[in-house]
């Protein structure tokens, strides 16, 4: 008979197998695809193109919000790309600090008039400036909106064919535009291209250009190095190959301006505007039956600072999860819809079941394991091996991305870096992974809560108000200490579970066991009159020559003796005795369920310090 628990176990294992199969497929594809792409470099020399007047260059859109200390360096790094004729549009999103003054001072900005068609709506522009030092630099000063709002402004201001959205705190590789433009030349129908984002923490920059790549020092950043490698080298490359890339990181993406305008630009009222835009572009082109391509190139293009503090990281992941859920919810129509081809049948379900529901399953799995342990329904060995397998699989994924990096780009200079990444790929599974799942779960919870309030708000017509998380390029600031209710709750929960599990050790009671050793089949059901205190009656049917078990455990000696007496009259050959336990542990609970393995029983006994000779019969019986 399969019980409820068995179904759950099968579901967990099935889910585990499916996920890993998908990952394995993605890995294999990615590995070969990256190698192929590595060989394809430098086919287009582009000299002819760049000398043409007909070629409309690229606008880089960089939103900035309260960045007075870093804005000059970031803008200067943007002006250093190796690419002829591109334009940098910095959008000051109503900063409250001196960002604008610093820009004006350093780049000798001068107010200009420029006609900006209001194709996409956004908060009003205060002024547009042009630099006297760099003719390619344009600065737009506007009222505060959100990142999406700032980017929409930039799209309106730009007059070029391609736009490139970046986070103001990322540093681009000098050859990035050239590499990305390749995709647009290869195929005219390309509408968006993404690239690999790498982690810049603790790397050495010399005047805004990567001088030396280093592994970050802090724990969280190191873990994210491995995480990013895995996500970009495997996830996205594989999706690109399958032509169903749904995410282009907000930190860097190159888009066809017309295509973005056609779908209406970035959405203001979502936290995941980068993913949402790409999905919407997919959807639009599929619905209109326009051929298109969304590409990802596995070339490292952009270096960005990642949060090193737990709270900030938690907030980021929470936001990502909310963004993911929001995007999938908005475009739920695409799920399993033949109209959207493999997007609907493969990519969307993957993101829904694995990326979005992943944390629920994972946290649920931990809960399930814990509860089965508390209620003695856990097969320890299975649990341990299963856990080991899943951890190892995660490691294999991470390490193969490290290896892939070794085969291709080799941006990390030392051999020791491999070991560091290997080590972090291992310890990532203990603690961080669980925490990460928890953050993402909380993100989902917030989404479900927040989604309702959005619904109400849209009806009232306040569509664009959503709290803090979405301010453009949130500066890393320590959030105020809150009383850790969540943690307290978790501790209480685990504590009570553990207490329940070891209740008999913690609160020992005098108990009397009625044991049976003999050769006969025995039906005890009718024999046991007085209700047992702890364990219910046991039905034993066995044909083994001799067996031994506990018939019942009682609080009072009288009851035990009564049972013994009633049994004693049944058969001559039976040998029923009572033993007095001062501190009862269910060593002798011969339940016919999951604990009937002698091995396990022996282990338990050993653990709680019963000597073998105390129960010689029992021991022999078990071994048989």
């Amino acid at each position, binding site marked *: 008979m399969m019980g409820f628990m068995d179904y759950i176990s099968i579901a967990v*294992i099935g889910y585990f197998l499916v996920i890993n199969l998908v990952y394995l497929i993605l890995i294999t594809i990615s590995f070969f695809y990256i190698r*192929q792409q590595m060989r394809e470099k430098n086919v287009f020399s582009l000299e*002819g193109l760049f000398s043409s007047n*007909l070629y409309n260059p690229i606008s880089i859109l960089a939103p900035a919000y309260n960045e007075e200390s870093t804005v000059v360096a970031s803008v200067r790094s943007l002006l250093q790309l190796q690419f002829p004729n591109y334009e940098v549009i910095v959008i000051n999103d109503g900063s409250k600090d001196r960002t604008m003054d610093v820009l004006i001072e350093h780049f000798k900005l001068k107010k200009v008039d420029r006609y900006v068609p209001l194709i996409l709506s956004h908060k009003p522009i205060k002024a547009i400036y042009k630099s006297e030092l760099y003719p390619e630099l344009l600065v737009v000063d506007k009222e505060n909106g959100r990142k999406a709002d700032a980017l929409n402004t930039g799209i309106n201001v730009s007059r070029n064919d391609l736009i490139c959205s970046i986070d103001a705190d990322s540093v681009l590789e000098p050859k990035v535009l050239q590499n990305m433009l390749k995709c647009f030349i*290869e195929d005219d129908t390309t509408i968006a291209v993404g690239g690999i984002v790498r982690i810049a923490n603790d790397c050495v920059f010399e005047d805004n250009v990567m001088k030396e790549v280093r592994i970050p020092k802090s724990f969280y950043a190191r873990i994210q190095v491995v995480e990013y490698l895995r996500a970009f080298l495997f996830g996205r490359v594989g999706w690109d190959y399958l032509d169903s890339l749904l995410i282009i990181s907000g930190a860097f993406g190159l888009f066809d301006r017309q295509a973005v305008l056609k779908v209406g630009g970035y959405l203001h009222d979502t936290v995941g505007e980068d993913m949402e835009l790409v999905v919407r572009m997919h959807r639009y082109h599929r619905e209109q039956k326009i051929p298109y391509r969304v590409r990802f190139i596995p070339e490292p293009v952009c270096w960005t600072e990642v949060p090193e503090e737990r709270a900030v990281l938690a907030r980021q992941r929470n936001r990502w999860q909310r963004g993911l859920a929001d995007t999938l919810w908005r475009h739920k129509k695409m799920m399993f819809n033949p109209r959207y081809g493999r997007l609907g049948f493969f990519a969307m379900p993957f993101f829904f079941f694995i990326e979005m529901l992943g944390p629920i399953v994972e946290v649920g799995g931990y809960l399930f394991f814990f509860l089965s342990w508390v209620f003695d329904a856990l097969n320890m060995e299975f649990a341990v091996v*299963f856990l080991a397998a899943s951890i190892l699989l995660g490691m294999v994924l991470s*390490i193969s991305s490290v290896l892939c990096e070794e085969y291709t780009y080799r941006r990390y200079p030392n051999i020791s870096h491999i070991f560091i990444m290997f080590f972090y790929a291992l310890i990532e599974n203990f603690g961080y992974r669980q925490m990460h799942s928890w953050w993402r779960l909380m993100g989902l919870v917030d989404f479900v809560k927040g989604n309702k309030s959005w619904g109400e708000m849209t009806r009232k017509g306040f569509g664009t108000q959503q709290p803090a998380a979405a301010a453009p390029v949130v500066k890393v600031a320590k959030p105020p200490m809150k009383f850790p209710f969540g943690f307290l709750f978790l501790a209480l929960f685990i504590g009570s579970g553990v207490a329940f599990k070891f209740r008999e050790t913690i609160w020992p009671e005098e108990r009397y066991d009625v044991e049976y050793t003999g050769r006969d089949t025995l039906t005890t059901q009718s024999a046991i009159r007085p209700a047992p205190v702890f364990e219910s009656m046991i039905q034993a049917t066995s044909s083994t020559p001799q067996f031994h078990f506990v018939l019942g455990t009682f609080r009072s000696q009288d009851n035990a003796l009564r049972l013994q007496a009633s049994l004693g009259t049944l058969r001559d050959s039976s040998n029923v005795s009572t033993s007095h336990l001062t501190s009862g542990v269910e060593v002798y609970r011969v339940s016919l369920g999951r604990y009937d393995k002698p091995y396990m029983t022996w282990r338990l006994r050993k653990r709680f310090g019963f000597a073998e000779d105390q129960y010689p019969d029992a021991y022999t019986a078990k071994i048989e």
Partner: protein
Amino acid sequence: MFTGTESDAIRFVWIIASLLAILSLYLLFTSVIVRVASRYVERQKEKRKNLYYGFIIAYITGERNDTTKLEKKIKSEFDIDLFVEIIADMMSQLDGQEYPKLQALLVLPVVKTHFWDRLRSRIVNKQTEACLYYALILDVNDDERAYLRTYVKSNSALLAHSAASGLLSSNDPALRYEAVLNMARKKRISRLAMLEMLYKFHNTQVDQFEEEAEFLSELLTDTSIPGNNIGVVIRSIADIGYSQLVMVLYDFLESGYRADEDDVVDGLIYAMGRFQFGPAGDWMMKTTVTHPNARIRRATAHAFEIFNDTRYLPSLLILAHDSELTVRIRAIFAMVAMGPEGQAHLDELSEQTSDLQTLIRSIRNEMETA
């Protein structure tokens, strides 16, 4: 967990776990090996580079004319790739009498035979590399050309593009024409790639303007070329400045050659503007001002802007009231550029609606500050 088959399940997971453990150790091990190997390769590369730089510089400055010693140093595929990479890099920076000397180094027998082998290989990547090599050198023999010709027709965009580059480096315009023609016939070729081709078609070293123009006019009448590519061809003709083709283009426009294809018409209007061809302006006043496609109306406004002639003001006034915003903007830009007379019309216009007023004011300001 499974009653009955429990131990099987555990065994299964055990096997998976141990396989994975072995695999991750193997991966770690390989990573380290790859790293050590690549270190070694890097070091070798640096050494070789220094060696080659010495030779190359000595050769092009005339210090040394004998290449036998250099040839002995180029042995493996690795050496050849490195050597070609260095020279290609220098070729992109140098001009004048050093350029042919670098080219001469590229056709050293050992290098040339190697790329000839690659050209004949079956692997697309190798073929592509070989094609790019032939784009750098001048003396390509007939056998090699035959290969390049077939590769131009390839379905792989990269191979076709590089084979075309290989042919386009030639000084024979007929050969270059063939490459461009084959590329232009492709439906999926991008606008940017097509532009690149046409700019390479134009020989900047030797003056072959007349022959090129002749070939281009042939290209224009080829009906097997899709309209979007013809549009790019026309635009680049105007941009590079083959003014001898202006009558041909005007005839196309007037006679309605491929008039149902917007890319073609758009390109023709652009060309008329670039060549400042007056008669076309009059024709456009009559026809394309009311064209159903906004893109073409916009192109018309742009052409009027380039003509910079006040007799187009009536048409521009119509375009300034266009239903499409981009057309209105272009028309107003054109009128601002036309000086006092255009400005007077604009003043009139801005009194009509406040919407137009703000549009005109901001465009005016922009033109003044620019």
